[in-house]
């Protein structure tokens, strides 16, 4: 059983590097969204229906992420890409669909500050670089560390 487990782990690792089964990871999504927010070449941002669709090149294909708000449009879009519909096979099909449904390409500078500040922050840079030592801010009320919750407990020696 243990040999089987190790074998399956190896298959999983091979599938990570194999292009035919390669999928989009969360980690590469964060890196791609950062690239799109910074306006790197080959990236694009579409806006419409209170949604932002970020597009960036990824391993010879195009990856995209849909940010926020109105659920119906997001569901439609993802359903089409998942090939339950028959319209979207390529990124050009998706862009055509978006443009015919009220989306338009926007400059990365026009993204809301809430999105750019998160995407281009130092913490996100650490995540995008795969750092395992993330910065964890800890906010305590002033004097909290001096507060003794058990003032009447005597320590017996």
């Amino acid at each position, binding site marked *: 059983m243990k040999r089987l*487990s190790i074998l*399956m782990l190896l298959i999983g690792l091979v599938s990570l590097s194999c292009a035919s089964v390669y999928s989009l990871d*969360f*980690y590469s999504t964060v890196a791609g969204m950062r690239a799109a927010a910074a306006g790197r070449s080959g990236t694009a941002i579409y806006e419409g229906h209170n949604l932002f669709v970020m597009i960036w090149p990824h391993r010879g294909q195009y990856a*995209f992420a849909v*940010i926020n708000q109105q659920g119906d449009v*997001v569901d439609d879009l993802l359903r089409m890409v998942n090939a339950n519909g028959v319209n979207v096979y390529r990124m050009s099909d998706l862009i055509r669909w978006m443009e015919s449904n009220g989306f338009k390409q926007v400059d990365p500078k026009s993204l809301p500050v809430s*999105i750019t500040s998160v995407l281009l922050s130092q913490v996100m840079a650490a995540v995008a670089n*795969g750092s395992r030592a993330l910065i964890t801010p800890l906010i305590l009320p002033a004097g909290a560390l001096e507060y003794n919750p058990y003032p009447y407990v005597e320590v017996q020696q």
Partner: protein
Amino acid sequence: MKMLFALFYLPLWMVVAVWVILRRKKALDENDLAMRAMLLNDIYYALPVPKGRFERMLIQKIIAYIEREKAAMLDLQRLGVRGIGMLPK
């Protein structure tokens, strides 16, 4: 205790197999993202205790990958990402 683990935990090979199959999906909505995060968690808890040097190295790599993915997943949630996907040019 072993009975409890047998009842509530899937074996590692099965979790990895499901994960490999689910990775083939072209686009992931919120449910798929949550499912993937859960699978990563399950793989993490199903990892065996390494014995040899090779196993230790392999499992360290996997744990680093899972931690990296979980950190990125939290940030995607914070940004309000509703779906991700990939399409050919």
